[in-house]
Protein backbone atom coordinates (compact mmCIF):
# COMPACT_ATOMS: atom_id res chain seq x y z
CA UNK A 1 0.00 0.00 0.00
CA UNK A 2 1.50 3.28 -1.11
CA UNK A 3 2.28 6.03 1.43
CA UNK A 4 2.63 8.83 -1.12
CA UNK A 5 3.56 9.41 -4.75
CA UNK A 6 5.85 11.58 -6.83
CA UNK A 7 3.74 13.21 -9.53
CA UNK A 8 5.99 16.00 -10.81
CA UNK A 9 9.58 16.04 -12.08
CA UNK A 10 11.45 19.16 -13.17
CA UNK A 11 15.00 19.07 -14.51
CA UNK A 12 17.04 21.97 -15.85
CA UNK A 13 19.68 21.45 -18.49
CA UNK A 14 22.78 19.84 -16.94
CA UNK A 15 25.90 21.75 -17.99
CA UNK A 16 29.65 21.55 -17.57
CA UNK A 17 29.94 25.32 -17.52
CA UNK A 18 28.52 27.99 -15.24
CA UNK A 19 25.33 29.60 -16.56
CA UNK A 20 23.02 30.49 -13.68
CA UNK A 21 23.35 30.58 -9.88
CA UNK A 22 22.03 27.57 -7.98
CA UNK A 23 19.01 29.42 -6.60
CA UNK A 24 17.90 30.40 -10.11
CA UNK A 25 18.34 26.86 -11.43
CA UNK A 26 16.24 25.73 -8.46
CA UNK A 27 13.47 28.19 -9.29
CA UNK A 28 13.39 26.93 -12.88
CA UNK A 29 13.26 23.26 -11.80
CA UNK A 30 10.51 24.01 -9.26
CA UNK A 31 8.36 25.63 -11.95
CA UNK A 32 8.89 22.71 -14.31
CA UNK A 33 8.00 20.16 -11.62
CA UNK A 34 4.78 21.99 -10.70
CA UNK A 35 3.69 22.13 -14.37
CA UNK A 36 4.65 18.49 -14.88
CA UNK A 37 2.37 17.55 -11.96
CA UNK A 38 -0.51 19.44 -13.58
CA UNK A 39 -0.61 21.90 -10.68
CA UNK A 40 -0.48 25.67 -10.17
CA UNK A 41 1.91 27.49 -7.85
CA UNK A 42 -1.01 28.20 -5.50
CA UNK A 43 -1.55 24.46 -5.05
CA UNK A 44 1.87 23.94 -3.47
CA UNK A 45 1.80 23.98 0.34
CA UNK A 46 5.21 22.52 1.16
CA UNK A 47 8.79 23.29 0.09
CA UNK A 48 11.81 21.29 1.24
CA UNK A 49 15.24 22.49 0.18
CA UNK A 50 18.18 20.13 -0.35
CA UNK A 51 21.20 22.41 -0.11
CA UNK A 52 24.47 21.02 -1.51
CA UNK A 53 27.11 20.59 1.20
CA UNK A 54 29.36 22.67 -1.09
CA UNK A 55 26.98 25.63 -1.17
CA UNK A 56 26.63 28.43 1.34
CA UNK A 57 23.20 28.86 2.88
CA UNK A 58 23.00 32.31 1.26
CA UNK A 59 23.28 30.65 -2.16
CA UNK A 60 20.35 28.36 -1.40
CA UNK A 61 18.29 30.22 1.19
CA UNK A 62 14.82 29.86 2.65
CA UNK A 63 13.89 32.80 0.41
CA UNK A 64 13.69 30.32 -2.47
CA UNK A 65 10.06 30.31 -1.37
CA UNK A 66 9.73 33.93 -2.53
CA UNK A 67 11.94 33.55 -5.59
CA UNK A 68 9.65 30.66 -6.64
CA UNK A 69 6.46 32.61 -6.00
CA UNK A 70 5.20 30.28 -3.27
CA UNK A 71 3.13 32.11 -0.65
CA UNK A 72 0.88 29.43 0.77
CA UNK A 73 3.26 27.07 2.58
CA UNK A 74 2.42 25.05 5.66
CA UNK A 75 5.79 23.25 5.48
CA UNK A 76 9.20 24.83 4.78
CA UNK A 77 12.66 23.63 5.72
CA UNK A 78 16.26 23.19 4.62
CA UNK A 79 17.09 19.51 5.00
CA UNK A 80 20.79 19.06 5.73
CA UNK A 81 21.94 15.46 5.75
CA UNK A 82 24.60 15.75 3.04
CA UNK A 83 24.10 13.32 0.16
CA UNK A 84 21.14 11.62 1.83
CA UNK A 85 19.19 14.89 1.87
CA UNK A 86 17.18 14.49 -1.34
CA UNK A 87 15.76 11.14 -0.27
CA UNK A 88 15.20 12.61 3.19
CA UNK A 89 13.20 15.52 1.74
CA UNK A 90 10.89 13.00 0.05
CA UNK A 91 10.61 11.09 3.32
CA UNK A 92 9.74 14.29 5.22
CA UNK A 93 7.23 15.26 2.54
CA UNK A 94 5.60 11.85 2.87
CA UNK A 95 5.39 12.13 6.66
CA UNK A 96 3.91 15.63 6.37
CA UNK A 97 1.31 14.39 3.88
CA UNK A 98 0.48 11.37 6.08
CA UNK A 99 -0.09 13.60 9.10
CA UNK A 100 -2.01 16.27 7.20
CA UNK A 101 0.58 19.03 7.64
CA UNK A 102 0.83 19.46 3.88
CA UNK A 103 -0.69 17.96 0.73
CA UNK A 104 1.55 18.89 -2.22
CA UNK A 105 5.22 19.28 -1.40
CA UNK A 106 8.05 20.37 -3.69
CA UNK A 107 11.52 18.97 -2.95
CA UNK A 108 14.42 20.59 -4.80
CA UNK A 109 18.17 20.22 -5.24
CA UNK A 110 20.48 22.54 -7.18
CA UNK A 111 24.23 22.89 -7.31
CA UNK A 112 26.90 24.67 -9.34
CA UNK A 113 30.24 23.02 -8.54
CA UNK A 114 31.58 24.22 -11.90
CA UNK A 115 32.29 27.93 -11.65
CA UNK A 116 34.29 30.22 -13.90
CA UNK A 117 37.98 29.41 -13.35
CA UNK A 118 37.16 26.52 -11.02
CA UNK A 119 37.28 22.88 -12.09
CA UNK A 120 35.11 20.27 -10.42
CA UNK A 121 38.27 18.80 -8.89
CA UNK A 122 39.07 22.10 -7.18
CA UNK A 123 35.48 22.58 -6.03
CA UNK A 124 35.53 19.28 -4.14
CA UNK A 125 39.19 19.49 -2.97
CA UNK A 126 38.41 20.16 0.69
CA UNK A 127 40.12 18.40 3.58
CA UNK A 128 38.09 15.29 4.36
CA UNK A 129 37.11 14.89 8.01
CA UNK A 130 37.90 11.41 9.29
CA UNK A 131 39.31 11.98 12.79
CA UNK A 132 36.70 14.40 14.13
CA UNK A 133 38.02 17.27 16.25
CA UNK A 134 41.61 16.03 15.99
CA UNK A 135 41.84 17.90 12.69
CA UNK A 136 45.05 16.17 11.59
CA UNK A 137 43.80 15.55 8.03
CA UNK A 138 45.01 18.89 6.65
CA UNK A 139 48.57 18.22 7.85
CA UNK A 140 48.53 14.68 6.44
CA UNK A 141 47.45 15.94 3.00
CA UNK A 142 44.16 14.06 3.21
CA UNK A 143 42.18 16.13 0.71
CA UNK A 144 39.01 15.47 -1.34
CA UNK A 145 36.20 13.00 -0.73
CA UNK A 146 37.98 10.71 -3.24
CA UNK A 147 40.47 9.90 -0.47
CA UNK A 148 37.83 8.79 2.01
CA UNK A 149 36.31 6.46 -0.57
CA UNK A 150 39.75 5.21 -1.63
CA UNK A 151 40.32 4.33 2.05
CA UNK A 152 37.03 2.39 2.09
CA UNK A 153 37.86 0.71 -1.23
CA UNK A 154 41.31 -0.43 -0.06
CA UNK A 155 39.80 -1.87 3.11
CA UNK A 156 36.98 -3.61 1.19
CA UNK A 157 39.31 -5.14 -1.41
CA UNK A 158 41.75 -6.34 1.28
CA UNK A 159 39.08 -7.81 3.59
CA UNK A 160 37.45 -9.72 0.73
CA UNK A 161 40.66 -10.45 -1.22
CA UNK A 162 39.36 -8.80 -4.40
CA UNK A 163 41.01 -6.59 -7.05
CA UNK A 164 40.20 -3.20 -8.58
CA UNK A 165 38.52 -5.09 -11.44
CA UNK A 166 35.48 -5.18 -9.11
CA UNK A 167 35.47 -1.37 -9.14
CA UNK A 168 36.00 -1.32 -12.90
CA UNK A 169 32.99 -3.59 -13.33
CA UNK A 170 30.80 -0.96 -11.64
CA UNK A 171 32.16 1.79 -13.90
CA UNK A 172 31.51 -0.37 -16.98
CA UNK A 173 27.98 -1.33 -15.86
CA UNK A 174 27.14 2.35 -15.38
CA UNK A 175 28.65 3.23 -18.75
CA UNK A 176 26.58 0.58 -20.53
CA UNK A 177 23.42 2.19 -19.14
CA UNK A 178 24.70 5.69 -19.99
CA UNK A 179 25.14 4.62 -23.62
CA UNK A 180 21.33 4.29 -23.67
CA UNK A 181 20.59 7.60 -21.91
CA UNK A 182 20.59 10.87 -23.83
CA UNK A 183 20.84 12.82 -20.56
CA UNK A 184 24.05 11.03 -19.59
CA UNK A 185 27.34 12.89 -19.99
CA UNK A 186 29.82 10.02 -20.56
CA UNK A 187 28.46 7.68 -23.25
CA UNK A 188 31.49 6.25 -25.07
CA UNK A 189 31.81 2.49 -24.53
CA UNK A 190 34.25 1.55 -21.75
CA UNK A 191 36.19 -1.74 -21.60
CA UNK A 192 38.02 -3.37 -18.71
CA UNK A 193 41.29 -2.92 -20.62
CA UNK A 194 40.66 0.83 -20.84
CA UNK A 195 39.76 0.90 -17.14
CA UNK A 196 42.93 -0.97 -16.14
CA UNK A 197 45.07 1.31 -18.33
CA UNK A 198 43.70 4.48 -16.70
CA UNK A 199 46.09 5.98 -14.13
CA UNK A 200 45.31 6.01 -10.43
CA UNK A 201 44.13 9.31 -8.99
CA UNK A 202 44.08 8.35 -5.32
CA UNK A 203 44.94 4.67 -5.32
CA UNK A 204 43.03 2.37 -5.48
CA UNK A 205 40.60 4.78 -7.23
CA UNK A 206 40.91 6.13 -10.75
CA UNK A 207 39.08 9.06 -12.32
CA UNK A 208 36.68 6.46 -13.81
CA UNK A 209 35.63 5.51 -10.26
CA UNK A 210 34.49 9.07 -9.48
CA UNK A 211 31.25 10.95 -10.08
CA UNK A 212 30.97 13.29 -13.05
CA UNK A 213 29.84 16.69 -11.68
CA UNK A 214 27.49 19.02 -13.54
CA UNK A 215 25.65 22.25 -12.78
CA UNK A 216 21.90 21.85 -12.65
CA UNK A 217 18.74 21.46 -10.61
CA UNK A 218 16.11 18.77 -10.10
CA UNK A 219 12.76 19.23 -8.34
CA UNK A 220 9.93 16.82 -7.61
CA UNK A 221 6.35 17.16 -6.38
CA UNK A 222 5.20 14.71 -3.70
CA UNK A 223 1.46 14.25 -3.09
CA UNK A 224 -0.93 11.95 -1.31
CA UNK A 225 -2.13 8.80 -3.05
CA UNK A 226 -5.61 10.18 -3.83
CA UNK A 227 -4.22 13.40 -5.31
CA UNK A 228 -1.81 11.35 -7.40
CA UNK A 229 -4.72 9.76 -9.26
CA UNK A 230 -5.55 13.17 -10.76
CA UNK A 231 -1.98 13.64 -11.99
CA UNK A 232 -1.36 13.82 -15.76
CA UNK A 233 1.82 11.76 -15.31
CA UNK A 234 1.93 8.14 -14.11
CA UNK A 235 2.54 8.39 -10.34
CA UNK A 236 5.76 6.97 -8.89
CA UNK A 237 4.52 5.46 -5.63
CA UNK A 238 6.44 5.18 -2.37
CA UNK A 239 5.82 2.12 -0.16
CA UNK A 240 8.68 2.18 2.34
CA UNK A 241 11.25 4.55 3.80
CA UNK A 242 14.26 4.11 6.08
CA UNK A 243 17.35 5.80 7.38
CA UNK A 244 20.57 4.50 8.92
CA UNK A 245 23.35 6.43 10.56
CA UNK A 246 25.87 4.03 12.04
CA UNK A 247 28.35 6.59 13.32
CA UNK A 248 32.08 6.73 12.86
CA UNK A 249 33.71 4.58 15.55
CA UNK A 250 37.44 4.56 14.80
CA UNK A 251 38.59 1.52 16.74
CA UNK A 252 38.94 -2.25 16.60
CA UNK A 253 35.65 -4.10 16.25
CA UNK A 254 34.12 -1.40 14.07
CA UNK A 255 34.63 -0.79 10.33
CA UNK A 256 32.60 2.35 9.54
CA UNK A 257 34.21 2.56 6.09
CA UNK A 258 32.54 -0.65 4.91
CA UNK A 259 29.88 -1.50 7.55
CA UNK A 260 27.61 1.48 7.06
CA UNK A 261 24.10 2.54 8.05
CA UNK A 262 22.81 1.30 4.68
CA UNK A 263 21.78 -1.99 6.30
CA UNK A 264 19.58 -0.26 8.87
CA UNK A 265 18.10 2.05 6.21
CA UNK A 266 17.27 -0.93 3.99
CA UNK A 267 15.86 -3.13 6.75
CA UNK A 268 13.55 -0.33 7.92
CA UNK A 269 12.36 0.47 4.39
CA UNK A 270 11.79 -3.20 3.45
CA UNK A 271 9.79 -3.81 6.63
CA UNK A 272 7.62 -0.72 6.03
CA UNK A 273 6.94 -1.86 2.46
CA UNK A 274 6.21 -5.42 3.60
CA UNK A 275 8.91 -6.90 1.37
CA UNK A 276 12.40 -8.36 1.57
CA UNK A 277 15.52 -7.66 -0.47
CA UNK A 278 14.51 -10.58 -2.72
CA UNK A 279 11.56 -8.51 -3.99
CA UNK A 280 13.74 -5.68 -5.35
CA UNK A 281 13.62 -5.55 -9.16
CA UNK A 282 16.05 -2.68 -9.75
CA UNK A 283 18.16 -0.16 -7.80
CA UNK A 284 19.00 3.49 -8.14
CA UNK A 285 21.94 3.95 -5.76
CA UNK A 286 23.71 7.15 -4.86
CA UNK A 287 27.08 6.23 -6.35
CA UNK A 288 29.50 9.13 -6.01
CA UNK A 289 32.25 6.48 -6.23
CA UNK A 290 32.27 2.96 -7.67
CA UNK A 291 33.09 1.35 -4.31
CA UNK A 292 29.82 2.50 -2.79
CA UNK A 293 27.77 0.45 -5.27
CA UNK A 294 29.58 -2.74 -4.21
CA UNK A 295 29.07 -2.00 -0.51
CA UNK A 296 25.43 -0.97 -1.03
CA UNK A 297 24.59 -4.12 -3.01
CA UNK A 298 25.80 -6.11 -0.01
CA UNK A 299 24.40 -4.05 2.87
CA UNK A 300 20.99 -3.66 1.21
CA UNK A 301 20.91 -7.45 1.15
CA UNK A 302 21.16 -7.95 -2.62
CA UNK A 303 24.53 -9.78 -2.61
CA UNK A 304 26.51 -11.74 -0.01
CA UNK A 305 29.42 -9.93 1.65
CA UNK A 306 32.39 -9.73 -0.69
CA UNK A 307 30.39 -11.10 -3.63
CA UNK A 308 29.12 -7.86 -5.20
CA UNK A 309 32.11 -7.58 -7.52
CA UNK A 310 31.50 -11.02 -9.00
CA UNK A 311 27.81 -10.15 -9.42
CA UNK A 312 28.58 -6.92 -11.28
CA UNK A 313 31.39 -8.53 -13.33
CA UNK A 314 28.90 -11.17 -14.51
CA UNK A 315 26.74 -8.41 -16.02
CA UNK A 316 23.75 -8.83 -13.68
CA UNK A 317 23.51 -5.07 -12.98
CA UNK A 318 23.97 -4.09 -16.65
CA UNK A 319 21.29 -3.85 -19.37
CA UNK A 320 19.68 -7.29 -19.64
CA UNK A 321 20.90 -8.40 -16.19
CA UNK A 322 18.70 -9.79 -13.40
CA UNK A 323 19.08 -6.67 -11.19
CA UNK A 324 19.39 -3.43 -13.19
CA UNK A 325 21.39 -0.88 -11.16
CA UNK A 326 21.75 2.85 -11.88
CA UNK A 327 19.94 2.57 -15.16
CA UNK A 328 20.73 6.10 -16.33
CA UNK A 329 24.49 5.73 -15.89
CA UNK A 330 24.39 6.86 -12.26
CA UNK A 331 26.79 9.45 -10.94
CA UNK A 332 29.82 7.95 -12.67
CA UNK A 333 28.65 8.20 -16.29
CA UNK A 334 25.32 10.01 -16.06
CA UNK A 335 25.32 13.25 -14.09
CA UNK A 336 26.30 14.03 -10.50
CA UNK A 337 23.52 16.02 -8.89
CA UNK A 338 23.96 14.23 -5.57
CA UNK A 339 20.81 12.58 -4.19
CA UNK A 340 18.63 14.00 -6.96
CA UNK A 341 20.28 11.81 -9.62
CA UNK A 342 18.94 8.42 -8.43
CA UNK A 343 15.52 9.98 -7.69
CA UNK A 344 15.22 11.45 -11.21
CA UNK A 345 16.13 8.18 -12.91
CA UNK A 346 13.71 6.27 -10.67
CA UNK A 347 10.84 8.54 -11.73
CA UNK A 348 11.63 8.24 -15.46
CA UNK A 349 11.80 4.44 -15.16
CA UNK A 350 8.62 4.13 -13.09
CA UNK A 351 6.76 6.31 -15.64
CA UNK A 352 8.03 4.05 -18.46
CA UNK A 353 9.66 7.11 -20.02
CA UNK A 354 13.20 5.72 -20.08
CA UNK A 355 13.37 4.97 -23.81
CA UNK A 356 15.78 2.22 -24.87
CA UNK A 357 17.00 1.77 -21.30
CA UNK A 358 13.50 1.06 -19.95
CA UNK A 359 13.39 -1.81 -17.45
CA UNK A 360 10.34 -4.08 -17.89
CA UNK A 361 9.50 -5.30 -14.38
CA UNK A 362 9.53 -2.64 -11.70
CA UNK A 363 7.21 -3.74 -8.91
CA UNK A 364 9.77 -2.62 -6.32
CA UNK A 365 12.66 -0.27 -6.95
CA UNK A 366 15.22 0.60 -4.27
CA UNK A 367 16.23 4.29 -4.39
CA UNK A 368 18.95 5.46 -2.01
CA UNK A 369 21.02 8.41 -0.91
CA UNK A 370 24.06 8.65 1.33
CA UNK A 371 26.28 11.44 2.50
CA UNK A 372 29.62 12.27 4.02
CA UNK A 373 31.98 9.30 3.96
CA UNK A 374 29.00 6.90 3.58
CA UNK A 375 27.89 7.81 7.14
CA UNK A 376 24.35 9.03 6.46
CA UNK A 377 21.88 6.80 4.62
CA UNK A 378 18.29 7.14 3.45
CA UNK A 379 16.27 4.75 1.30
CA UNK A 380 12.93 4.59 -0.50
CA UNK A 381 11.03 1.61 -1.89
CA UNK A 382 9.13 2.79 -4.97
CA UNK A 383 6.87 1.28 -7.62
CA UNK A 384 4.25 1.83 -10.32
CA UNK A 385 1.01 0.74 -8.62
CA UNK A 386 -0.90 2.02 -5.63
CA UNK A 387 -1.07 -1.54 -4.32
CA UNK A 388 1.31 -4.30 -5.39
CA UNK A 389 -0.38 -7.72 -5.41
Amino acid sequence: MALSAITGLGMTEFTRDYQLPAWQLAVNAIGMAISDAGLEHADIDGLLLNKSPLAELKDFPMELQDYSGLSNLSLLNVVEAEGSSMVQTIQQATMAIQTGMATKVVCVFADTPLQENTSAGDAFAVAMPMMGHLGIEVANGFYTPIAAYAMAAQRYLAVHDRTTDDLGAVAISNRRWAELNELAKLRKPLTMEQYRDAPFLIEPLRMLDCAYPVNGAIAVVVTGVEDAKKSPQPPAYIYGMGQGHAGNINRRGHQPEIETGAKQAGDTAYKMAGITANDIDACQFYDAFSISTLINLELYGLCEKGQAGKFVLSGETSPGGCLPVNTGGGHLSGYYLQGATPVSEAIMQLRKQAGTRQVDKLDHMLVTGYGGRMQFHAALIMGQKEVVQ
Partner: protein
Amino acid sequence: MKFPEADIVWPSVEPVAAPFYEGMAQHKVMIQQCVSCSTYLPPAQVVCDDCGSNTLNWVNVSGHGKIYSYVVYHRSFHPAFNQQVPYTVALIELNEGPRLQAQFIGDKESCYVGMPVEPTYKIINDKHTLLCYMRSED
Protein backbone atom coordinates in the same frame (compact mmCIF):
# COMPACT_ATOMS: atom_id res chain seq x y z
CA MET B 1 38.51 28.32 -5.23
CA LYS B 2 42.16 29.38 -4.97
CA PHE B 3 44.33 27.90 -2.23
CA PRO B 4 46.60 30.23 -0.28
CA GLU B 5 50.30 29.91 -1.05
CA ALA B 6 51.73 27.83 1.74
CA ASP B 7 54.66 25.58 2.44
CA ILE B 8 52.89 23.80 5.24
CA VAL B 9 49.36 23.43 6.40
CA TRP B 10 48.57 22.91 10.04
CA PRO B 11 45.18 22.70 11.75
CA SER B 12 44.05 25.29 14.24
CA VAL B 13 44.19 22.96 17.23
CA GLU B 14 41.01 22.74 19.28
CA PRO B 15 41.36 22.52 23.07
CA VAL B 16 40.00 18.94 23.08
CA ALA B 17 42.87 17.91 20.78
CA ALA B 18 45.71 19.89 22.43
CA PRO B 19 47.28 17.01 24.45
CA PHE B 20 47.71 15.00 21.24
CA TYR B 21 49.58 17.84 19.54
CA GLU B 22 51.67 18.59 22.64
CA GLY B 23 52.60 14.89 22.80
CA MET B 24 53.43 14.80 19.11
CA ALA B 25 55.89 17.69 19.52
CA GLN B 26 57.70 15.55 22.13
CA HIS B 27 57.56 12.41 19.94
CA LYS B 28 54.86 10.79 22.04
CA VAL B 29 51.60 9.18 20.92
CA MET B 30 48.72 10.32 23.12
CA ILE B 31 45.29 8.69 22.98
CA GLN B 32 42.39 8.60 25.42
CA GLN B 33 40.93 6.01 27.77
CA CYS B 34 37.53 5.84 29.40
CA VAL B 35 37.81 5.98 33.19
CA SER B 36 34.54 4.10 33.56
CA CYS B 37 34.94 1.12 31.21
CA SER B 38 38.68 1.30 30.31
CA THR B 39 38.01 1.37 26.56
CA TYR B 40 40.83 3.03 24.65
CA LEU B 41 39.58 5.79 22.34
CA PRO B 42 41.11 7.85 19.51
CA PRO B 43 42.26 11.34 20.55
CA ALA B 44 39.96 14.36 20.84
CA GLN B 45 36.84 12.61 22.16
CA VAL B 46 34.61 13.98 24.92
CA VAL B 47 32.30 10.97 25.38
CA CYS B 48 33.14 7.25 25.41
CA ASP B 49 31.43 5.71 22.38
CA ASP B 50 31.21 2.40 24.22
CA CYS B 51 29.62 3.27 27.61
CA GLY B 52 28.67 6.93 27.23
CA SER B 53 30.84 8.16 30.11
CA ASN B 54 32.27 11.65 29.77
CA THR B 55 35.22 11.03 32.08
CA LEU B 56 38.19 10.29 29.86
CA ASN B 57 41.93 10.28 30.56
CA TRP B 58 44.83 10.95 28.22
CA VAL B 59 47.37 8.13 28.06
CA ASN B 60 50.78 7.82 26.39
CA VAL B 61 51.06 4.63 24.33
CA SER B 62 53.85 3.07 22.24
CA GLY B 63 52.00 3.94 19.05
CA HIS B 64 52.72 0.53 17.52
CA GLY B 65 50.00 -0.99 15.43
CA LYS B 66 48.98 -2.30 12.02
CA ILE B 67 47.80 -0.69 8.82
CA TYR B 68 43.99 -0.88 8.69
CA SER B 69 43.73 0.78 5.27
CA TYR B 70 45.71 3.25 3.17
CA VAL B 71 45.55 5.37 0.03
CA VAL B 72 48.24 6.64 -2.34
CA TYR B 73 47.94 10.16 -3.72
CA HIS B 74 49.13 10.21 -7.33
CA ARG B 75 48.00 13.81 -7.71
CA SER B 76 48.22 16.75 -5.34
CA PHE B 77 45.03 18.53 -4.32
CA HIS B 78 46.84 21.21 -2.29
CA PRO B 79 49.95 23.19 -3.27
CA ALA B 80 51.71 22.32 -0.01
CA PHE B 81 51.77 18.68 -1.12
CA ASN B 82 52.84 19.16 -4.76
CA GLN B 83 56.42 18.06 -4.03
CA GLN B 84 55.33 15.01 -1.99
CA VAL B 85 53.38 13.15 -4.69
CA PRO B 86 53.16 10.20 -4.66
CA TYR B 87 52.51 10.02 -0.92
CA THR B 88 50.64 7.53 1.24
CA VAL B 89 48.08 8.27 3.96
CA ALA B 90 47.07 5.35 6.17
CA LEU B 91 44.71 4.51 8.98
CA ILE B 92 46.77 2.81 11.69
CA GLU B 93 45.01 0.49 14.13
CA LEU B 94 46.99 0.84 17.35
CA ASN B 95 47.64 -2.26 19.47
CA GLU B 96 45.25 -0.74 22.05
CA GLY B 97 42.44 -0.61 19.44
CA PRO B 98 41.91 3.03 18.38
CA ARG B 99 42.80 4.10 14.86
CA LEU B 100 44.88 7.13 13.87
CA GLN B 101 45.30 8.71 10.45
CA ALA B 102 48.92 9.39 9.47
CA GLN B 103 51.27 9.50 6.51
CA PHE B 104 53.14 6.26 5.82
CA ILE B 105 56.84 6.84 5.13
CA GLY B 106 58.42 4.23 2.91
CA ASP B 107 57.99 2.43 -0.37
CA LYS B 108 54.30 2.51 -1.25
CA GLU B 109 54.68 -0.84 -3.01
CA SER B 110 55.64 -2.39 0.33
CA CYS B 111 52.49 -1.17 2.06
CA TYR B 112 49.66 -3.63 2.74
CA VAL B 113 46.60 -3.91 4.98
CA GLY B 114 47.70 -5.65 8.17
CA MET B 115 51.34 -4.52 7.95
CA PRO B 116 52.98 -3.89 11.37
CA VAL B 117 54.05 -0.26 11.73
CA GLU B 118 55.60 2.06 14.32
CA PRO B 119 55.78 5.81 14.78
CA THR B 120 58.35 8.02 13.13
CA TYR B 121 58.38 11.81 13.26
CA LYS B 122 58.68 14.27 10.40
CA ILE B 123 60.24 17.55 11.59
CA ILE B 124 58.49 20.10 9.41
CA ASN B 125 59.98 23.24 10.99
CA ASP B 126 60.87 24.67 14.42
CA LYS B 127 57.25 24.68 15.49
CA HIS B 128 55.77 21.62 13.81
CA THR B 129 56.49 17.92 14.11
CA LEU B 130 54.16 15.45 12.40
CA LEU B 131 53.51 11.90 13.60
CA CYS B 132 54.05 9.52 10.69
CA TYR B 133 54.39 5.77 10.42
CA MET B 134 56.98 3.34 9.04
CA ARG B 135 57.30 -0.39 8.74
CA SER B 136 58.01 -2.10 12.05
CA GLU B 137 60.18 -5.17 12.52
CA ASP B 138 57.75 -6.50 15.15
